[in-house]
Structure formats: C-alpha cells, structure tokens
C-alpha cells in the first residue's frame, strides 16, 4: 500500500513537471496561468495522498489550498483587465475599453 502510494505521488509529480513545461513555453499569458492552475490541483492531490501516507493533518493544508486555488487566477484576470481592477465578463464597451483601443 505505502509502496503504491509512493508511486502514485511520483506519477503526480511527473505530471506536474509536464505542466511546468507549459508555464515555460507559454506562449499566451493565459497558457501559463492555466498550467499554474493545473499545478495547484495536482498539488492538492499530492497533499491528499500525503495525508494517507504520513498524517491526516496534511488534509488541513489541502483544504486551505483548495479554498484558495482560484486566488492567483483571479489576481491575473484583474491585472489583465484594462484598469487593473475589472472583470473580463464586463464586455460592454465602456470608457476603459475605448482607452484601451487607443493604445
């Protein structure tokens, strides 16, 4: 059992390394961000297995990471919006969009 869980964790870390490659090559910012998101989910998986392998206290950490899994990505869409505070769903062409077009 412990043997198998070690193998699975190693497999997850391998999958994580693949996602790191996508962060490196991009090319779009969204590519890098989505790869980081996948890395986050994989990390939660690793923590869940570490909980079984070592100590169930690791679940507390996994829960915190799951709770905040979207934070970085929300920060990204905020920063990517034209005034740095917006929401990509606000598609009505407002004054900010017009300014954006001029650049």
């Amino acid at each position, binding site marked *: 059992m412990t043997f198998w869980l070690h193998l699975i964790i190693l497999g997850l870390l391998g*999958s994580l390394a693949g996602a790191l490659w996508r962060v490196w090559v991009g090319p*779009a910012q969204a590519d890098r961000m989505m790869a980081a998101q996948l890395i986050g989910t994989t990390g939660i998986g690793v923590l869940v297995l570490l909980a079984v392998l070592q100590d169930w206290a690791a679940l507390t950490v996994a829960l915190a990471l799951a709770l905040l*899994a979207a934070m970085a990505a929300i920060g990204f869409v905020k920063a990517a919006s034209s005034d740095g505070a917006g929401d990509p769903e606000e598609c009505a062409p407002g004054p900010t969009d017009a300014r954006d077009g001029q650049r």
Partner: protein
Amino acid sequence: MPEGLADIATIVLTGIGLVFFLAGTVGLIRFPDVFSRLHALTKADNLGLGFIVLGAGFQADDWTQLAKLGLIWALALLAAGTVAQLVARAALRQEGRE
C-alpha cells in the same frame, strides 16, 4: 468493509486518478491553441482529483476526514470552474494585445 477490499479500492481509484491527471497534462502539452488546452485540462484534472479523493476516502478513519475530503473536492471543482471561465474570457480579450 474488510481491510483488503478497502486497500484494493484505494489502489484502483488512485490509479485511475493518476491516469486522468496524466491525460490532462498531455492535453495541456499537445493541444494546439489556448482554448482547446483550457478545455482538456479543466475536465481531466477535476476528475483526477475526484478519484484520488475517493481513493483516499477508503483509508479514512472517521467521518471528519471524509467530510474534509469531500469539501476539498467541492472547493477544487468550484475554483476550477470559475478560473476556466475567467481565464478564457481574459485570453479572449487579450488576443492581439500581446
């Protein structure tokens, strides 16, 4: 449930979970453009985490651990759905700007 059966369930379920994670990563690496990569990944990694959580659940000693495991998966699903939507929109608006 007898010990042996629970262990077998854990082995099978975590194995399936790993396969989904690997499939998601392969999609992330091989698919040609941003939006298909997004598509491949959000489905695969959430199913993967689901199976891993289920597999771990068979080793849990009490109900609070099971509840935490369930909550972890629910929160991860919520986050992934939100992020996929938002990042896709941001990518749509950013196209041509970068």
